[in-house]
């Protein structure tokens, strides 16, 4: 397929420490694919290897069938925003973009077009050093769009954007994907991806945890659990366990039950004459699914005395 990103057994070590281990996945065109992982999971390292800025220790990554670093000019193939601060504050937005356009033999009119598109039409003549983080994010997006490329990579693009900006970026990503482009967006917050991505690639500690549609991912996490409170813990526990449920008792006469629906638990309690004081079903959110899946792979957990 055209314009695919293919990551094959990618590994990157810095000294003895592996930032990315044996990572394989593909990113397809026509969708927004979210690249999720806790801080330090290896997202930025992976993106840098995609762009040829960092060299893999082993494995490979190709965009449109070729390592990106093999292309003499990049902007018509891949647009990228790695870090909104990757600009020289002393230049105007106009000069910054013009130099990039000229280097890739793009028509200079593109500079004005992309500045308008990201809402910086009036700020083109101002020095980037005076820009807010949100404006720099917009300039970074303008840079990525300059060559009208079929593949777009964004590293944490929503950082520093106000709610209006976040909404605009989501609309933009959906439009870019609808045009048939490959849109790959990293984030460490599931909530950012919920309304942005169609597909997810989730990594933790440099390893792949999941690569699937948002729907499938959400289904993983909706292991429904039910809280039950009863004065007769021992009886109910036996009854539910016999029905094949997983039961976790707590000290306050309550149980967390997985594997049975709330109504089924109610029926069973009634049949066995166990009084029930509380019966609450819990549906895990995407956020919970993400937390659950990456819990083992959080690099820097709070209160972690390592």
């Amino acid at each position, binding site marked *: 397929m055209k314009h695919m990103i293919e990551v094959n057994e990618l590994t990157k070590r810095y000294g003895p420490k592996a930032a990315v281990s044996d990572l394989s996945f593909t990113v397809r065109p026509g969708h927004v694919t979210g690249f999720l992982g806790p801080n330090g999971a290896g997202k930025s390292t992976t993106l840098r290897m995609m762009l040829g800025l960092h060299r893999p220790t082993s494995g490979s990554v190709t965009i449109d069938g070729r390592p990106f670093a093999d292309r003499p000019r990049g902007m*018509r193939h891949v647009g990228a925003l790695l870090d909104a601060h990757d*600009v020289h504050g002393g*230049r105007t937005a106009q000069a910054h973009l013009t130099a990039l356009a*000229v280097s890739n033999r793009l028509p200079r009119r593109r500079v004005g077009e992309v500045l308008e598109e990201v809402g910086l039409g009036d700020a083109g003549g101002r020095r980037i050093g005076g820009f807010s983080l949100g404006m720099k994010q917009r300039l970074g997006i303008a840079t990525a769009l300059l060559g009208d490329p079929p593949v777009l990579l964004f590293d944490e693009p929503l950082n520093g954007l106000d709610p209006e900006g976040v*909404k605009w970026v989501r609309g933009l990503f*959906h439009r870019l994907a609808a045009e*048939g482009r490959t849109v790959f967006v990293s984030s460490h917050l599931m909530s950012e991806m919920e309304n942005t991505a169609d597909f997810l690639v989730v990594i933790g500690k440099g390893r792949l945890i999941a690569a699937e549609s948002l729907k499938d991912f959400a289904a993983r996490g909706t292991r429904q659990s039910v809280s039950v409170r009863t004065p007769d813990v021992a009886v109910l526990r036996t009854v539910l366990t016999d029905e094949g449920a997983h039961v976790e008792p707590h000290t306050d006469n309550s149980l967390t039950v997985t594997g049975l629906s709330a109504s089924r638990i109610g029926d069973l309690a009634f049949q066995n004459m166990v009084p029930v004081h509380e019966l609450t079903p819990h549906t895990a959110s995407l956020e919970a699914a993400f937390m659950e899946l990456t819990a083992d792979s959080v690099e820097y957990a709070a209160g972690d005395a390592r």
Partner: protein
Amino acid sequence: MTETATAPTPSPVRSFDTTEPRARFADLVAAEWIKIWSLRSTPWAFLGGALAVIGFNVFTTYNDYSNWPGWSPQQKAEFMPNWAMLDTFTDAAVLCLMLTASAMGALTVVGEYSTGLIHTTFTAVPARRSVMAAKVLVVTLVTTALGLFAAGGSFWLTQAILSGRDTGLSLGDPGVVPALLASALVAPVAALVGMAVGALLRAGAATMGVSFAVLLLVPMAVSDDHYGTAVVDHLLPYSAWARLIQVVEKPAHFPWSQGGAWAVYAAWGLISAVITVVAVQRRDQ
């Protein structure tokens, strides 16, 4: 229905034509030209550096002009041609020119690393060596222009002052043009050294420190009285300039030819250019 306000009209799936015009080195040179002149520091460094150099030379020459009536006939006779040439382009001026040019060269490289711009640059143009070669060319052009402007301006003004004492050099005098060229070309040599150190160290303060040490401090520390140190001394760009500024060769313990001095210029320039271009290829950026 807030979504409809911003929701884009459904766009047709496009086919992307990623065929592109042939990659030209000239585009990269044009881009680097835009980059260097779009920084406010460049015209200021250019103008400030040139005026400082010309100022040093005019000041020294004016001193000699003022003191001239009090000089002995022998002093007056010895003034031409070497002392006149050293009025045209003084020690202080050459140090100032090297400092300005090496800082300009270093900043074109270190400025990319310290800001993170290098990621944007190499993502736009994955052919890293071509980018650096374009930078080398642009910096060489700009600093050569700086050197020529500073040396040419100094010559014109200082000789105008000396003509008031019926002395002074003219471009037709033997050795004058090479001496002026050597003074001008010290700028691109120093700039290329700054770039190479910058490409290796990537950090601003360290780059400035090492460049200044190599270009300015080492030549002051090394004497040319002993064979061993003279060999080291003769391998330095500053010493090469000091040799080339001699319109008539001065006696020395270990004499060396003008050709040798020019070779030192060329070697420093070329090796620095090669280091700048090659240093970026294999390292993670």
